[in-house]
């Protein structure tokens, strides 16, 4: 069954006709060809496919397209601010927060979601926020450092 939906994706409004059972992850990757959102498990256990749905982080592998009418979605492709890297992207680059990079888009979206709510996260806050995003390469230390640095940068910008 196909369904018409209007969504805002990375700030752009779109009208789509999609099978209602199509997962948001597959909609993004297969139909809109935005492959920055990664598939790690397809069962909501790894966080690689994290996107922001109406400002909240979700596993896009657990969201049906049929539910998306009127939704505002931000993916990794929408994280840059114009030509500029978002501070969290910049910090991941500087601190060595990415290795193979496959979990990175999900990590970044989850980190952005945290920093949107809390500009003063403690290390514990960050560890907790990222605990649903699996990384097999880094041991998380440099990712956590990067989120701390991004928070400091955002705080500095705010004053």
């Amino acid at each position, binding site marked *: 069954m196909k369904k018409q939906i209007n969504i805002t994706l990375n700030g752009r409004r779109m009208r789509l006709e999609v099978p209602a059972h199509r997962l948001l992850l597959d909609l993004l990757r297969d139909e809109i060809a935005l492959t920055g959102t990664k598939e790690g498990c397809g069962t909501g256990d790894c966080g690689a496919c994290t996107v922001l749905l109406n400002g909240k982080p979700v596993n896009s592998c657990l969201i049906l397209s049929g539910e998306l009418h009127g939704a505002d979605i931000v993916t990794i492709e929408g994280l840059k601010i114009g030509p500029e890297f978002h501070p969290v992207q910049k910090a991941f680059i500087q601190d060595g927060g990415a290795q193979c990079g496959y979990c990175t888009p999900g990590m970044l979206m989850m980190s952005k979601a945290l920093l949107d709510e809390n500009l003063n996260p403690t290390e514990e806050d960050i560890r907790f926020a990222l*605990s649903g995003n699996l990384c*097999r390469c880094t041991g998380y230390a440099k990712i956590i450092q990067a989120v701390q640095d991004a928070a400091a940068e955002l705080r500095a910008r705010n004053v």
Partner: protein
Amino acid sequence: MSELTVVGKPVTRVDVDAKVTGEAIYGYDLVLPNMLYGKAVFSTRPHAKIKRINTEKARSYPGIVAVITGEDAPWTHGESIKDKPFLARGKVRYIGEPVAAVAAVDEDTAQAAAALIEVEYADLPSYFSPVEACAPGAIPIHEDFASYRKAEFIVGGSMPNVCEHFKLRTGDVERGFKDADLILEERYTVPTIQHAAMEPHSAHAQVDPVTGRLTLWVANDAPFRALHEIAEALGLPNEKIRLINPLQGGGFGSKGGLKVETVAMALAYHTQGRPVRVKFNRQETFISTLVRHECTVYIKSGVKKDGTLVAREMVLYWGGGAYAEKSPTVCIRGSLPAPGPYRIPHVKVDGYAVYTNKPVSGAFRGYGIPQGAWACEQHMDELALRLGMDPRDLRLKNIFVDGDLSYWGEQLHSVGLKETLVKATEAIDWDKPRPEGIGRGFACISKPTRTPTTSSAAVYVDAKGEVTVLAGTVEIGQGCSTILSQVAAEELKVPIQQVRMHPLDTDVIPFDASTTSSRSTYHMGNAVRLSAIQAREQLAEIASPMLEARKEDLDFKNGRVFLKDHPQMALSLGEVIKRKFGPEGVVRADASYCYEIGKDLDLETGHSDHASAFYMYATQAAEVKVDTETGKIKLLRMSAAHDVGKAINPLNCAAQIEGGLAMGIGSALHEELVVDDQGKVRNPSFLDYHLVTSLDLPQMIPIIVECSEPEGPYGAKGLGEPGLAPTPAAIGNAVANAIGFRIYDLPLTPERVYWAIKKKGKEAA
């Protein structure tokens, strides 16, 4: 040598921008024009004859282009033993083995049609433990083992289901045990675990209908080795095959060999030239790619009262799973140094790689070292305890130092082990009193690299002054593209931003043995360095008349060549090339590197005077607290000191150490791929297979030790694999230190620790 400008600096990764924007295209992301979607049907029996496969319903399903079984893909492959069919033929040997496959116009259709294929089986007895599978009277999992094509070093068939028997014989262990004051005999086990790279496995394949040429797009960690294995299997000349490597989302050894690749290739021969993509989902990746060898280790040592090691005997049973894959070489390279980095006059080791009816074991970061270390390093602590010695003093008395003749007959040099031991233990305050309820422990390892192997590279400089590096090392996430860019930038004295890595395509890129065994920085680093030096020589030659100076009077810096005595007399590299060859001109140089080939491994004694181009040394130390009510181990801090020879990029070295340590912690505390008594994997998901999360890790203290390796580029060795090798043993020793007795089996789950404490309590009462 002039001062280093970029080597040794914490340069940020050259590949990271595309990774933080989502622009990086991985194998799993790749879409090809006119592509079909493949899906495999997997065996549901651990060991059975295939009686019948009914594909009729699938064939008539709308949108299906091809339906194939093993009979449609009559090829057999294997790295050192040709034992594995592309799709099962005649029988299945594990649950998860591909038995049939379909290609369809879309993913949904492929999945629906695959579900319509019916397979009838006649069950055979199965074996889920390597010790049982090689017991007298066990029936063979591979009836035709004797007639398989094999590499010359294969010594199999001595016992049922043994595909490799490695022997090390040094001195006379029986005499050694007689001379010893204390003898200790123990048994340790390590379970199956999985790599669980975040990117699942996939492969795209196409057979050109005109030329018959086969192209594979696959994130394989050894494209040239894979190409060779495919060529042998298909009976094609190498030039009829091309591998293109998209970016790889982690591997840790799992992305070598041929798994999903065989399904994609088999289908591609039945799609009339259309490319076909086969993606394994996470569950399929768990059951049908590769796992790490489970291992049962028997260890017996004789030691003098003063702690001098006299004799050590070990038997290791490596669970190979249903096909040999890399089991023979894991068995050899894991068993050989299993007695540990110590001077021992009398050593006897027998390693057996054994077929079982479980998922196929393959390369896994560490290549057999973690299993041996889990046994050997805890055994060392037990010896120390019985001798009344500090475990560190026992190590210091026996560890390898420069000039030692190892028990496998090789004179050792550049041994940074002692420094790693001292630094790792100091970092957790080894000498300070231990608070109540806290345990401390450490473990040492040495790791060889695959030897001899070849890396070739090419470097070209264009008229814009940009440098392109052609190297077959695969960027798995380990950072090779940054390291190799640093090497090229260093030798050509250009800013690293002017260096670009060429995408990996076997049609264009020179040969490289593999991105495995922590061999790339050393081997490919040397090949790139030699290529860049030659390119620089050519540039000096060309620039010399332009600058009206002798070659010897020229120097290079910041992308320019200039007169040493008159630095203002300078030309950019691009300008030099443009003047000589025009704006499209290039200067190109190639080089190969192969470590000097020594005597072959002696199959009777296991001895070799050049077993490894270099050795990596490491010590890790742990401080733990054990909750005796729940059995839960709390890691307080862990240090990891690694001798890397020379840190070409200290930031990347720390990243590798932390990542390895985290993986080691997972394997120590909770990772196990559970296979039940019916051969079925019980936890093929991230919900049930527990990877470490951001909440599970202690403070990690990476320590870089630089004991220069003369043959390595700038003194570098390797680093990727040792990061997880000593971790479980270090934690095991700390736990034993905390609770007063030892646990011999991994992982150290709260449940296992809880019951061990209970049992100990009962014994005491």
